[in-house]
C-alpha cells in the first residue's frame, strides 16, 4: 500500500545510502547549510551496543565457530570473523540476487547506518594521474572526464577531514597526500621490507584511514587492531561516526533507517520529484518529495535502483538513455599467499596489535614496464603478527604437524605469529561480458526486481594474478619462507578471487562527457535528469590498483559542492 510520508514538506536533498558516498554528501551539504533526508536500508547503528571492540572469543559461546560448529563443516557463520561490524553478508534473507549460468559472482551487502565503512579495511589510496587516462595510456578501457588535478583538492579535503596515515614518497603510482604519521613496522613487516629492498620493490608506510593524532575532536588510535569491529572511540573513518552522527548535530539531517528505496519518481519534465521506499518496519511503501536526489547505495545497488525507476519517458530506467547502466562492472583482482617464516619462531612476545591493518604496503612499482603481458598493476597488502588467538588459527599447523601432547603444544607455541600473508589487489579492466542487469523473473521480499550478474575475468586478470603469485613467492622465499602450495590454477577460487569477493565492485553508472556513452556528466550529475546525482563508486571509469573508498569520498565531496552551488544558483 502506498502512503505519502506525512511530513509532506519537500526535502531539500534525499540521499539514498549512508556509506562512504552518502556519508560524505551528508557531511558536505549540511556544512553548507542544506537540509538532507538520508535513507538507509538497514537499521540505525548504536556503536556502544553494535561494536564488539575488545571482546574475547570466549565471550561468545561458539567462539566464532558458529552454532553447532558450523565452520568445521565448511560454513561461514561470521563472514569476516567473530565481532566484525559489517552487519551484512554475501546472502541476505529475502533479498536475493542471481548469477547468469556459468558465471560466478558474490555480492557483499551491509545493511546498517554507515554501510560497509563500519568494517572496511581503511586502506586509503589516491588514484595516480595515469589512472584517470587508461585509454590514452594503453588503448584499453575508457578515460575519465576528469583528471587527477581535478580531484586532487578533494583528496586533500577528504584526507584532512577523515585522517589518513602515510609518508611522502614521491612515487608516481601512489600520489602523496595529507598524512598523519604511520606507526612503525611490526617485526614481520621489517622482514618484508628487507626482502622487498633486495628485490627492488618499494615497501612503504601504510595509508590507512586511522588517526594517529587527535583530529576534529576524535581521539587518536589506541592500537588494538580491531578496526573491522568498528571503533568505539571513532579513531578510524566510518561514514556513520565520522560524518553522519556529527552532521546530525547541525539539525539538518532527517535520517530514516530501515528504508529500502524502490524507485525514483519523475515528473513530466523528467525531474526527480520523489523517492519511493519500503518502510521495512511497517512493510508499507512511502514516498518522500525532494528537490534533488543523490543515489549512493553502492555501485550495483545504485544501478538497480535506477534501472527499476522506469517510466514512459524513461523506459530503460532513469538516466539510462545511453544503455550503460549496469555495464562496465569491475571488481579488484585478488590473490593471496602465506608462508611460515622460520626467523619468527619463538619470537619474544610483545604487543604487535597496532592499527587494524598493515603498517607497510607495496604500491605498484612496474608502471613503466610494457612487456608484462597484461595491462595495469596491483598493490600488495601485508598480514601477520601475534593476532588475538581464536579457534581455527591452528588448523593448518595441526594438519601439518599431526601428533599430540606436549610436543604438539610446544610446536604450536613456537609457530604462533610466524605466518606472513601477502595479498594482491589489482586492476580489472572492464569487459563486455561483465555487467549486471535486472533479472526479469525474480523479485525480493519487497517485490523489487533484483539484479542478475554476469562476470568474466579475462586473460589480463589471470596473468596478473599469476604475476602476483610469482612476486609473493619471491618475497616470502627471500624472507626464508617455504611455499608449500602448488602453483595456482588460473580459475576463480584458486589462482584468482571470485568476482565480487574483494568488494570493490564499481563502474555501473559511469560518468563521461558524451551522453551517448555515459549516464553522468563530470560532476556525477545525470545527463538526462539535472537534479539526480550518483555518489558512490558507480560513476568510476576504471578500477585501478587502489581501494576505491578514498576516491568515493573525494568524488562525492566534489559532487556535493557542485550540487550545493547549483542549488544556490537555482539551477537545481
Amino acid at each position, binding site marked *: 500500500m502506498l502512503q505519502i510520508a506525512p511530513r509532506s514538506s519537500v526535502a531539500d536533498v534525499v540521499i539514498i545510502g549512508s556509506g562512504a558516498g552518502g556519508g560524505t554528501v551528508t557531511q558536505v551539504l549540511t556544512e553548507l547549510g542544506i537540509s538532507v533526508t538520508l535513507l538507509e536500508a538497514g537499521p540505525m547503528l548504536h556503536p556502544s551496543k553494535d561494536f564488539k571492540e575488545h571482546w*574475547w572469543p570466549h565471550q561468545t559461546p561458539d567462539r566464532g565457530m558458529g552454532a553447532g560448529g558450523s565452520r568445521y563443516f565448511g560454513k561461514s557463520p561470521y563472514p569476516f570473523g567473530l565481532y566484525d561490524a559489517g552487519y551484512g553478508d554475501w546472502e541476505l534473507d529475502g533479498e536475493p540476487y542471481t548469477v547468469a549460468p556459468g558465471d560466478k559472482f558474490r555480492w557483499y551487502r551491509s545493511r546498517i547506518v554507515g554501510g560497509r565503512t563500519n568494517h572496511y579495511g581503511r586502506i586509503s589510496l589516491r588514484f595516480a594521474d595515469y589512472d584517470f587516462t587508461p585509454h590514452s595510456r594503453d588503448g584499453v578501457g575508457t578515460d575519465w572526464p576528469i583528471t587527477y588535478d581535478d580531484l586532487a583538492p578533494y583528496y586533500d579535503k577528504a584526507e584532512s577531514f577523515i585522517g589518513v596515515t602515510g609518508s611522502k614518497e614521491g612515487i608516481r603510482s601512489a600520489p602523496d597526500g595529507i598524512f598523519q604519521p604511520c606507526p612503525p613496522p611490526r617485526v614481520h613487516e621489517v622482514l618484508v621490507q628487507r626482502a622487498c629492498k633486495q628485490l627492488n620493490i618499494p615497501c612503504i608506510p601504510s595509508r590507512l584511514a586511522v588517526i594517529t593524532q587527535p583530529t576534529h575532536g576524535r581521539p587518536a588510535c589506541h592500537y588494538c587492531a580491531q578496526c573491522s569491529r568498528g571503533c568505539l572511540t571513532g579513531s578510524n573513518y566510518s561514514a556513520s561516526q565520522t560524518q553522519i552522527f556529527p552532521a546530525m548535530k547541525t539539525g539538518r539531517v532527517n535520517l530514516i533507517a530501515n528504508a529500502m528505496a524502490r524507485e525514483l519518481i519523475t515528473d513530466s519534465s523528467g525531474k526527480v520529484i520523489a523517492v519511493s521506499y519500503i518502510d521495512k518496519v511497517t512493510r508499507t511503501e512511502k514516498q518522500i518529495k525532494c528537490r534533488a536526489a543523490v543515489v549512493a547505495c553502492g555501485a550495483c545497488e545504485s544501478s538497480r535502483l535506477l534501472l527499476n525507476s522506469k517510466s514512459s519517458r524513461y523506459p530503460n530506467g532513469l538516466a539510462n538513455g545511453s544503455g550503460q547502466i549496469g555495464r562496465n562492472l569491475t571488481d579488484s583482482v585478488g590473490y593471496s599467499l602465506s608462508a611460515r617464516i622460520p626467523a619468527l619462531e619463538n619470537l619474544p612476545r610483545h604487543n604487535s*596489535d597496532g592499527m587494524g591493518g598493515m603498517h607497510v604496503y607495496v604500491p605498484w612499482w612496474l608502471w613503466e614496464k610494457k612487456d608484462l603481458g597484461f595491462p595495469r598493476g596491483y598493490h600488495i597488502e601485508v598480514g601477520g603478527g601475534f593476532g588475538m588467538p581464536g579457534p581455527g588459527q591452528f588448523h593448518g599447523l595441526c594438519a601439518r604437524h599431526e601428533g*599430540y601432547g606436549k610436543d604438539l603444544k610446544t610446536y604450536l607455541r613456537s609457530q604462533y605469529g610466524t605466518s606472513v600473508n601477502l595479498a594482491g589487489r589489482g586492476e580489472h579492466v572492464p569487459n563486455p561480458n561483465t555487467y549486471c542487469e535486472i533479472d526479469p523473473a525474480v523479485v525480493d521480499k519487497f517485490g523489487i526486481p533484483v539484479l542478475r550478474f554476469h562476470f568474466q575475468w579475462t586473460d589480463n586478470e589471470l596473468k596478473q594474478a599469476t604475476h602476483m603469485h610469482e612476486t609473493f613467492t619471491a618475497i616470502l622465499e627471500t624472507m626464508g619462507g617455504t611455499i608449500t602450495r602448488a602453483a595456482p590454477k588460473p580459475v576463480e577460487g584458486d589462482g584468482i578471487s571470485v568476482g565480487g569477493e574483494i568488494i570493490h565492485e564499481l563502474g555501473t553508472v559511469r560518468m563521461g562527457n558524451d551522453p551517448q556513452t555515459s549516464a553522468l556528466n563530470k560532476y556525477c550529475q545525470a545527463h538526462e535528469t539535472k537534479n539526480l546525482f550518483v555518489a558512490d563508486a558507480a560513476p568510476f571509469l576504471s578500477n585501478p590498483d587502489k581501494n576505491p573508498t578514498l576516491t568515493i569520498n573525494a568524488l562525492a565531496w566534489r559532487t556535493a559542492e557542485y550540487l550545493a552551488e547549483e542549488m544556490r544558483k537555482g539551477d537545481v
Partner: protein
Amino acid sequence: MSNNDAVSRRDLLRVAGLSILAGGTLTLAEAQHVHQIAATEGAYRPKALTAHEYRSLSTLADLIIPADEVSPGAVAAGAPAWIDLLASQSSELTNIYTGGIAWLDTEMHRRVGTNFVDAKPSDQIALVDLIAYRKNGTGELAPGVRFLDWARKMVVDGFYSSPLGTKDLGYQGNSAVSKFEVPQEAIDYALQRSPFGK
C-alpha cells in the same frame, strides 16, 4: 557471583586442578574463567555426550593438550565443555564424538579388555600414538585417525581460544595504548635468524 571475593585464589586453583601454576599469576579474566570452571567442576552436566563419553573426551583432551611448565591442560581450560556445547547444537558433530569414542572403546577392549577411559595411561598413549598420524589411516585404524583429527583440532581450538590458552601463547594485545612501539629486541631476534642477518 557476589561471593567471588570470598573464594580465595588458592581455592580456585585447587578446585580447577591448577596447582601447577602456584608460582604464576592470573589476570582478572583468567581468574573469572577459572572460577566458572571451578564452579562447574564435577558438576558439569554434558548436554550432548553421556557422562561416560564426556569423561572419555576429557581424558583424550588432556592427552592432546596436557598441562606443562607453561600452562594447564585442555580440561582446565574448558575445552571438552566447549566441544560438548557445540555438539549439543549439531547432531552431525555429536555423531562424530559418540562414534569416535565408541570406536576408541571397542579398539581398547580388543587390545586390553577395557574401555578407553578405564585403560592404563600407557595403553591409552599406545593407541593415541598410532591414530595421531595420517600414515596409519589406511587400514583398520582409519576411523580412529579420522576421529583424532577432529578431536585434535577442536581441543586445540577450545584450549587456545580460552583465557588460559591465550596466556600460554603470550598474546599481549587487546589493549588500549597511547603509543605503538616494537621492541628492538624482537626485531634483532628475527633479523639475526633471518637470511638478512643483523
